[in-house]
């Protein structure tokens, strides 16, 4: 894919966000898909490529009345949608299809029409992790952080600061679930979930969804919205088991994905006006800032504590409030992409001034997968 040759021409979230017990998971896919089609001025019949996770593409195509000639059901967790964007850009470039819809819908909180979460006892994780009392992401994603903190001499106060700053961004966003300001002391006084992680260091659990529509940049002027161009992309996976992550202070998947995205986009860090780093837990922006190369190893906690990513800072990060304060359905990556699109379009609630180049970085599983998308407001 040539930088800027593919554009996001439609983007929308579900009409409601947060607690949606009156909608099943497949309907959440449909609700945001129909909003994105309206945003792009398209009908379902105009879509000839479909990608989704959480539901298999067959379900979503049938439910929406789409006849795709290209489908992608890549499901590597919350960053699946970054990979979908990358794959869709390649597919459109290769003329396998022209107009791709990517959907995410998840009844993460109400669990209406949602698949049960199970770990197969014969899988490697079932044999070598499940017997030791893992119970969802708060007991797995969190395990590396004590090693990280010790390696770099960072503190739990600095970890808490990640949540404090993101709440400041959330306060500017009417759709954010948590908007009241919090202090480091508030975070450290919130209920202990899995030491050293307290409630406010963990993501929300919500219902919702989001959808994107991609087409070639040549067609972008035919759509009603300001196009958001794809400059570069990256993806990788590492391991399904947090215990087997090679380096507890750095994610290989982050490094591989981020490097590909920056190199294919032809950008340098100084070019980046806006950044999203998937924050299922408070330590993820620390790993992301370092593994993407915005700061050196061990420097991210101080960078955030110095308010460099806060409102008014030089590198606005997670400006929707993030998974910690905006929303987190389970596979939050779609919401990070939506915020990047809004910022590049110039329509975000907490709009950063003059966003020309934005980086959106996702994680899947427990540091198990990653996808990175670089977007721009113009073709290079």
């Amino acid at each position: 894919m040539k930088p800027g040759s593919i554009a996001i021409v439609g983007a929308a979230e579900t009409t409601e966000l947060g607690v949606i017990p009156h909608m099943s998971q497949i309907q959440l896919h449909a609700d945001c898909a129909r909003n994105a089609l309206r945003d792009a001025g398209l009908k379902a019949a105009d879509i000839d490529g479909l990608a989704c996770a959480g539901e298999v593409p067959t379900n979503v195509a049938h439910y929406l009345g789409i006849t795709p000639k290209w489908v992608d059901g890549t499901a590597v967790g919350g960053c699946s949608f970054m990979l979908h964007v990358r794959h869709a850009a390649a597919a459109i470039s290769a003329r396998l299809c022209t107009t791709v819809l990517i959907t995410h819908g998840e009844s993460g909180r109400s669990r209406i029409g949602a698949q049960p979460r199970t770990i197969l006892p014969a899988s490697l994780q079932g044999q070598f992790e499940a017997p030791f009392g893992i119970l969802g992401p708060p007991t797995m994603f969190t395990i590396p952080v004590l090693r990280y903190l010790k390696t770099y001499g960072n503190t739990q106060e600095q970890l808490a600061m990640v949540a404090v700053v993101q709440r400041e961004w959330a306060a500017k966003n009417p759709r954010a679930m948590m908007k009241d300001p919090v202090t480091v002391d508030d975070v450290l006084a919130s209920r202990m979930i899995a030491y050293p992680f307290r409630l406010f260091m963990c993501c929300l659990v919500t219902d919702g969804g989001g959808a994107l529509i991609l087409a070639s940049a040549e067609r972008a002027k035919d759509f009603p919205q300001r196009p958001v161009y794809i400059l570069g992309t990256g993806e990788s996976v590492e391991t399904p088991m947090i215990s087997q992550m090679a380096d507890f202070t750095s994610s290989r998947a982050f490094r591989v994905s981020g490097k590909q995205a920056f190199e294919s986009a032809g950008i340098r860090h100084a070019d980046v006006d806006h950044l999203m780093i998937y924050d299922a837990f408070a330590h993820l922006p620390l790993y992301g800032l370092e593994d993407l190369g915005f700061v050196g190893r061990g420097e991210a906690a101080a960078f955030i504590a110095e308010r460099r990513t806060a409102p008014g800072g030089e590198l606005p990060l997670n400006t929707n409030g993030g998974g910690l304060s905006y929303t987190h359905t389970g596979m939050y990556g779609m919401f990070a992409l939506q915020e990047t699109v809004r910022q590049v379009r110039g329509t975000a609630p907490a709009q950063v001034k003059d966003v020309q180049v934005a980086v959106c970085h996702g994680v899947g599983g427990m540091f198990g997968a990653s996808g990175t998308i670089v977007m721009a407001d113009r073709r290079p």
Partner: protein
Amino acid sequence: MTERPLPTITPETRHFWEGTRAGELRLQRCAGCGDAYFPPRPFCPSCGSAEVTIFRASGRATLYSYVIHQRPAPGFVPPYSIAVVQLEEGPRMMTNIVQVAQTPEALQLDMPLEVVFERMSDDISLPFFRPAGRSA
């Protein structure tokens, strides 16, 4: 479900679970590159060689990282540690740290540990780790 989830043994992992049942921590080592590795598979994940041997590990490890879970889980009474230990031979594995207070003060990173086995069923004994240097 109120019981701890137990593994279903697969052909590639049988030696490991037969080992724990016999009171041994069994790892694999590549004859080609010499790397010891875990979890089990019949080829080396570093170099791809299928010339691998099974050996008994020392059972010595250090505490690499952990969380202390505060909520109930099937078969567990909180608070309990979910830990990753660094085995002396190189690989890391998930486990619980036992026979010690489940507190940040008692669980210090890099503290020396040793393996202990606990029978869970006819087929499955799980490897846990406790502070090193205690007699059984």
